[in-house]
């Protein structure tokens, strides 16, 4: 019943081989077994979005998937956003526009916004608000998050 399985995950380009019980959620394994604690756990039932990561480029709730299901897949978490010393344009924009206060929801918002904008760089304001309604923030009142993502959308299009 508690049989453990060996799985391979590629997170931010780094390979991780871990042995886990089937009942372990992906977010728990990312944090506890792979040691990447940037991804946060909020509600553990898919409502808050704090655990949002990119699975093969698509934003998803890592608390609603078992780690064994991600065997052989490619994931991106908040640790993979910055390039060396240089922050990702989305991280820069969140700082500049005060898109965070306590920071608990921030990794989820960053991955959500980056994942969507990489695929659809020309989101309308209405679509952007619809997307950002996916995650909960209890500090900012969302206005500054919207401002940050709008600004980052422009900067992400500029050649690096």
């Amino acid at each position, binding site marked *: *019943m*508690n*049989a453990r*399985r060996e799985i391979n995950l590629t997170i931010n380009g780094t390979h991780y081989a871990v042995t886990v*019980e*089937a*009942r*372990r*959620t992906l977010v*728990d394994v990312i944090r506890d077994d792979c040691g990447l604690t940037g991804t946060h756990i909020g509600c*553990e*039932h*898919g409502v808050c*979005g704090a655990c*949002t990561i990119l*699975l093969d480029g*698509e*934003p*998803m*709730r890592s*608390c*609603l*998937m*078992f780690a*064994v*299901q991600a065997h052989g897949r490619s994931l991106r978490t908040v640790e993979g956003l910055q390039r060396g010393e240089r922050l990702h344009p989305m991280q820069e924009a969140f700082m500049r526009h005060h898109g965070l206060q306590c920071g608990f929801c921030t990794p989820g918002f960053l991955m*959500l916004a980056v994942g*969507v904008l990489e695929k659809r760089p020309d989101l309308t304001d209405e679509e952007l608000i*619809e*997307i950002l*309604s*996916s*995650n909960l923030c209890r500090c900012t009142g969302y206005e500054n998050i919207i401002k940050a993502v709008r600004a980052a959308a422009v900067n992400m299009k500029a050649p690096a």
Partner: protein
Amino acid sequence: MKPASFKYYAPTSLDEAVALLAELGPQDGRILAGGQSLVPTMAFRMARPAHLIDINGIAELATVTVKDNVLAIGACVRHAAFEASTVPGVTGALLRKVVQNIAHYPIRTRGTFCGSVANADPASEWCCVMAALDGVVLARSQRGIRRIAAADFFQGVMATVLGEDELIVAAELPLLLEDTVTGFVEFSRRKGDFAIAMALVTYRLESGSIIEPRVAIGGAETHPRRLPEAEALLSGKMPEGGAFSAAAKTAALAIDPMEDINNTAGYRRKLVQTLLQRALETAA
């Protein structure tokens, strides 16, 4: 909370999955597709399946096909597939309208159409679509394939006629004729939340009068269904205020609404009347 222990299986072929389900279904085995309803239920320990059969590795279940004017949606097709132009024509346009109302984007990238149908939540948008368009559920077991009409499939709150050894391999929707007008409106208190009620309408026009009207209501009763009483009041009428409000009033009276701590039966009736009116007025 964390889900309880279970035994995990990842079949790579349909035959293998169906054989596993035949063996494990009677021993509290469940199918895992998108997991966006099952996994939270397991996290709350409201569900503690002994075995999970993960069908995500079965490539043939991830396809959307159109053949002989029937759209077939495979068991692993995600909600998000309907946001792109996966499905052509007015049927595709209707599905794009509906999908925006399902949870949130990061849920839609994982959750599946067929999983939503199997789960049969009263507030499921896809169940309402299946009822409205007279969709068909394809249930596969070692006994063969059973075709189940949506009108027979849904039995109550999260209750269907699906056997414990049966796997939904696809859901079929007949394509709407290209001159069909469609409307969909739902109401929930928070963006992405379960709808308290929803209304879906389709009709065509012949010499300026409504023909082949379909009216389906979801979220208000134990399961979504078409309302023949409301459809009868639209048939043969001009698509305008009088016929719309008569149909909406009749729908409100025809339903047997669920009640919960926030929503009385009376409130749900009024909501259904308003939503159907809006769905008819905004149908295009």
